[in-house]
């Protein structure tokens, strides 16, 4: 149900993943994940190695942070991050890489894994793995099935339905076998027999490669999915892959599923088989005006500006730079902010592309309702939200909105539906929190 078809613009789909050189300094926020921020375990002046733990996760839902470079800690201070807020970060002046002990840098693929489920979860936790699809939920938590629940399927998200982004696509083409080993390891941790890799059918090469490789991994299969945004949203992916609907306000495990991104599967492979902490990720840098758009393997903490330089520099007529995809990404106001674990793309828009349409009257065409993947009524929710009618917002299930932006994309009147609904969501969220505490 629902969904929109924005122009795909996957201009970097055929660009190989390029290793981005280590920048002069990196800024590593201690909160790059959903949950409690990590606490620094290094101090100003310390020398750290690449892959060394620099901040320890602070609770059940939290993740460790490792140094992505070798060098000297020059500052631990509040620094602007991609959210637009200042957050505590560790700033490291880099030197030549010296890798922390135990990290296997050999390019050979390690297939066998003797660890049991608990040991896998421990290792994924140790290596600071979080969901790389964008939500950055700590992965080890998702690999532990809560008591009383049972997982039937691991669903692997290779959909990448955001226009422009090709990081997951390239990773599947170039690191397919590693991803599959990662999937097998995750299956073992979860105790599931079956894994389904969901890929939109606009990536036939990835479907072919992953399908061929999956043949030699027991219980893993590829499902080609209809091209529509947001096919890669967790609940929509589960619906498309196995036909089950996750109830409102519940987690996928409610319908026997755990969903991980292909990038996360790769990170799990590296963590478990190579002792490699999550210190780098693939980032797509794209935009119609970019000189050399591409996909880059980037150390966490690298400034966005360095990434844009590598892609040919910021064009003269740039009007907007987006952290993430064009549908759900956040516009940046400072290009000095670092790439973090959740950065899947950097998108550069021209001045022309940067401005919204003029807002005119709602003509009640109902398209927002037709495209809403959650079956909500954005025209109604935005109006209720604007009028501060929070109780009705809650009744009309405003909290089910995942902010995919389909409604606002399709609105012929250019109305700021999602802006208003975000305000409503934050008010209703506060009311719900106050009620439960």
């Amino acid at each position, binding site marked *: *149900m629902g969904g929109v078809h*924005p*122009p795909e613009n996957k201009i970097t789909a055929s660009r190989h993943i390029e290793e981005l050189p280590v920048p002069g300094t990196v800024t590593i926020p201690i909160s790059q994940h959903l949950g409690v921020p990590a606490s620094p375990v290094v101090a100003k002046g310390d020398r750290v190695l690449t892959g060394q733990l620099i901040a320890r996760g602070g609770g059940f839902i939290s993740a460790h942070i490792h140094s992505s470079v070798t060098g000297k800690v020059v500052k631990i201070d509040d620094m602007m991050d991609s959210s*637009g807020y200042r957050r505590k970060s560790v700033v490291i002046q880099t030197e030549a890489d010296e890798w922390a002990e135990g990290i296997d840098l050999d390019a050979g693929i390690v297939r066998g894994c003797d660890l049991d489920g608990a040991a896998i979860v421990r290792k994924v936790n140790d290596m600071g793995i979080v969901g790389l699809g964008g939500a950055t939920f700590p992965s080890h938590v998702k690999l532990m099935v809560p008591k009383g629940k049972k997982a039937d399927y691991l669903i692997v998200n290779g959909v990448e339905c955001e*226009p422009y982004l090709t990081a997951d696509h390239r990773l599947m083409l170039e690191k397919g076998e590693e991803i599959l080993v990662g999937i097998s390891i995750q299956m073992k941790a979860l105790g599931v027999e079956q894994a389904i890799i969901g890929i939109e059918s606009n990536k036939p090469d990835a479907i072919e490669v992953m399908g061929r490789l999956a043949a030699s991994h027991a219980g893993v299969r590829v499902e080609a999915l209809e091209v529509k945004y947001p096919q890669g949203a967790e*609940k929509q992916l589960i*619906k498309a892959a*196995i*036909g*089950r*609907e*996750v109830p*409102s306000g*519940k987690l996928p495990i409610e*319908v*026997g599923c755990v969903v991980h991104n292909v990038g996360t599967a790769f990170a799990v492979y590296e963590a478990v088989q190579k002792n490699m902490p999550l210190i780098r990720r693939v980032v797509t840098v794209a935009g119609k005006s970019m000189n050399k758009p591409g996909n880059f393997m980037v150390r966490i903490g690298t400034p966005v500006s360095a990434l844009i330089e590598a892609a040919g520099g*910021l*064009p*003269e007529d*740039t*009007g*907007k*730079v*987006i952290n993430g995809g064009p*549908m759900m*990404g956040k*516009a*940046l*106001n400072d*290009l000095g902010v670092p790439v973090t674990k959740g950065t899947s793309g950097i998108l550069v*828009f021209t001045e022309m*592309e*940067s401005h*919204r*349409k003029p807002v*005119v*009257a709602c*003509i*009640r*065409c*109902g398209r927002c309702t*037709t495209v809403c993947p*959650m*079956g*909500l*009524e954005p*025209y109604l929710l935005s109006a209720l939200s604007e009028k501060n009618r929070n109780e009705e917002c809650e009744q009309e299930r405003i909290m*089910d909105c995942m902010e995919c*932006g*389909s409604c*606002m*994309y*399709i609105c*012929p*009147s*250019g109305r*700021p539906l*999602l*802006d208003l609904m*975000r305000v409503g969501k934050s008010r209703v969220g506060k009311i719900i929190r106050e009620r439960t505490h």
Partner: protein
Amino acid sequence: MSVLTVSGSPHLQTDQSVSKIMYGVVFSLIPAMLVSFYFFGLAAILVTITAVVACMAFEFLIQKYLIRGPLTIFDGSALITGILLAFNVPASLPLWMVVVGSAAAIGMGKMTFGGLGKNPFNPALVGRVFLMISFPVEMTSWPLPSAFSTKLTDAVTGPTALAIWKDGVGQGNTVDQVMADLPEYAQLLIGNMGGSIGEISALALLLGGVYMLVRKIITWHIPVAYLGSVVVFAGVFWLIDPTYYIDPLFHLISGGLMLGALYMATDMVTSPMSARGQIVFGIGCGVVTMVIRLFGAYPEGVSFAILIMNAFVPIINKGMKPKRFGEEVKHG
């Protein structure tokens, strides 16, 4: 680069706009317009131009001097109201009455409620019903179609096909006897019949409807539900007594049904938001239309049916919510 723009996601928007939708509707009306101009001649052209100019002028005057808000007369919506109002009156209607109808349509039907998007009732139908009640004689003398003519007065008038049937069986004749006085169905289909300017050619209207469907200006729900329920309703009575009730095909291609089902009932502003609601709305329109046609005082009921169902839209929107994701919990 000077300053980076920061705004909330999404950062992409469709290239569709309100005026593109409106002008798409206008474009789709061209075939029906050409057929009508052919059969009703210069008179129909003058009525249409008068209605369009008057509707846009009233919208301009009200926005500029009463509301003192932004001017939106070129968004295409007043243009459509003008065309549809003209389509809903006889070609012989005096032009000053067309102007009065336009004032009712735009003033009462639309601007009173705050303009585009706020009106509960279809403005063109508000104008039509206003004229119908004010000038019942002029609004029910239907010029008969002829090859293109520039004659403006003394056109030959006659009853509509629906009136021929209704009066005929009302006087005790059987459908078979009435049939002799009716144009052939092929003629009804192409529009060679008496009636309001734009309602006559089911074929040309269908063509426009298909265009709107393909361009995704409308969805199938309302027209299919409306026409489908008319067929079912008419079919049931036809099966019960075929000597009194005429067949469903006749109901489909005569009167204002096609114009109503494709253009008036599908008006986005005054129809329900969800697909489920649109189906209920369409069925409601069909049932009320047929109740009026078969049992009411008027031979035609499309305008009243749509206006009556317009009034139910808020309650339909409240009751017919889209299916929420995760509403029916399935465990497989």
